[in-house]
């Protein structure tokens, strides 16, 4: 039993090891919470409410269906927008990777879009469209599309030419080529792209909900601002943060399963 862990120390017993991992995972949040709690001792509650109050507000939101529905609305909008951007982005990326002409045409447009602030899309969406949900979907797609597309293009370009030739030598159909080589090759980058864009989308969505949504986290945040309720504002914000953390965790589980074929070095970088 002289195996070494990544930091070069000898491994402790599993229980202590597990507890240590939990502590390490929670430490940053404990620190943030403690800092806030200390601030709440020195500032009035409407600036820095106690975390206890925030905790009860969070529970409130989770317990009351009428409020929790707002969280689900926002989650649905994030996922719909990301799914839309991903599908469109994947199609654009395949075309760009296949043809220099298409790439030279689309790249500048996407880069141009990347420079447009989310708030500008909100204004455009309000002027151009009627339906609230469609406006939000439009904003979500356009703000996440460029990153998705560029990430998939670079994954396609980075595919091993050796493996492409190997697979080509078996004369596969296009579908076979895609299923057996392209998809598994770019999957790591796709999952990373989802993780990155998820964070972006959760920040954009509350802005997008300013287009006149009568529900959702963005709408609720606006309400809290009007009644100057800091505990409420924080509780609603945390709902989104929790959602992002949960989905990131699920994506990590998928990664661990999908990339179990990878060699793991016993030395860290």
């Amino acid at each position: 039993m002289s195996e070494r862990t990544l930091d070069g120390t000898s491994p402790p017993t599993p229980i202590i090891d597990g507890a240590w991992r939990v502590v390490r995972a929670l430490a940053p949040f404990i620190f943030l919470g403690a800092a806030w709690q200390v601030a709440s001792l020195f500032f009035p509650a409407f600036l820095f409410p106690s975390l206890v109050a925030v905790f009860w507000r969070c529970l409130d939101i989770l317990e009351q269906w009428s409020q929790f529905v707002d969280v689900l609305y926002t989650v649905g909008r994030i996922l719909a927008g990301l799914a839309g951007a991903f599908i469109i982005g994947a199609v654009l990326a395949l075309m760009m990777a296949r043809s220099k002409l298409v790439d030279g045409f689309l790249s500048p447009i996407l880069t141009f879009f990347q420079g447009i602030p989310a708030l500008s899309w909100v204004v455009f969406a309000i002027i151009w469209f009627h339906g609230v949900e469609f406006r939000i979907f439009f904003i979500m797609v356009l703000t996440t599309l460029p990153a998705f597309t560029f990430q998939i293009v670079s994954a396609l370009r980075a595919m091993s030419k050796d493996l492409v030739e190997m697979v080509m030598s078996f004369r596969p159909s296009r579908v076979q080529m895609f299923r057996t080589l392209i998809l598994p090759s770019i999957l790591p980058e796709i999952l990373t792209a989802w993780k990155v864009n998820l964070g972006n989308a959760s920040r954009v969505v509350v802005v997008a909900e300013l287009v006149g949504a009568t529900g959702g986290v963005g709408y609720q945040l606006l309400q809290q601002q009007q009644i100057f309720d800091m505990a409420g504002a924080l509780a609603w914000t945390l709902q989104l943060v929790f959602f992002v953390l949960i989905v990131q965790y699920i994506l990590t589980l998928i990664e661990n399963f999908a990339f179990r074929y990878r060699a793991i070095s016993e030395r860290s970088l």
Partner: protein
Amino acid sequence: MTMTDTAPPARPEIRFEHVSKTFGRVGATDLFRAVDDLNLEIGSGELVAILGKTGCGKSTMFNMIAGLLEPSAGKVEVSGHDPFAQFNWFRGKIAIVFQNDRLLPWRTAIENVAFGLEMLDVPKAERMASAQAWLTKLGLGGHENDYPHALSGGMRQRVSIARAFATNANILLCDEPFSALDEMTGNRLREEFARLVRENGKTAVFITHSINEALQIGDRIVVLRRPAKIAYDTRLGRDADHGAKEDIRARIQAVLAE
């Protein structure tokens, strides 16, 4: 000088007719000639070692047989068809062993061996059984479910040989498949490979830059000069004795030294 000890084969499986291949190169105005007016016929069932110094155009010639490159001039014919223009006609008819193993890292050994059969739409049970048989033949029983990263270089190359044989293609193309292996592993694999080719009646083109390897493997040795053109072409009897082989070695060395 071109020396030929051999009569042309009865039914050529692979034929080069005045084939040249030129490449445009970045920063140069003239074309670079990798293959120059090459004429070659390889008969069905022959195991031919193509020998030449590095950079003499062996891989270029190889890729033209494989249909991955198009000749700039002349005609390449494999089984009576054009490997580049009729690329898909060769589905299941040509199998390749590359210099590096080129295994799919997300597939286990057995799934890698079954890959070619999967491309041919062979049902799963059937292709796994066949893959299993080939893995066992190549001494990899017990490693079916290992991922490539967990196999040694020699084992990975065995998997890629099993993958090529499993498709049951009649033509086998190998581009220096053992040159990255240590000498002992290489020697053992060379012998097994030559035995499998003969047992299964394949037509095989085996590229190498090593005289020893060519002598060990080939029924016939074709020596190329740079740019690729035949400098020497000879058949060894299957039971060629040591003296005869040394004779051929000396002649090859003389040709290569030119």
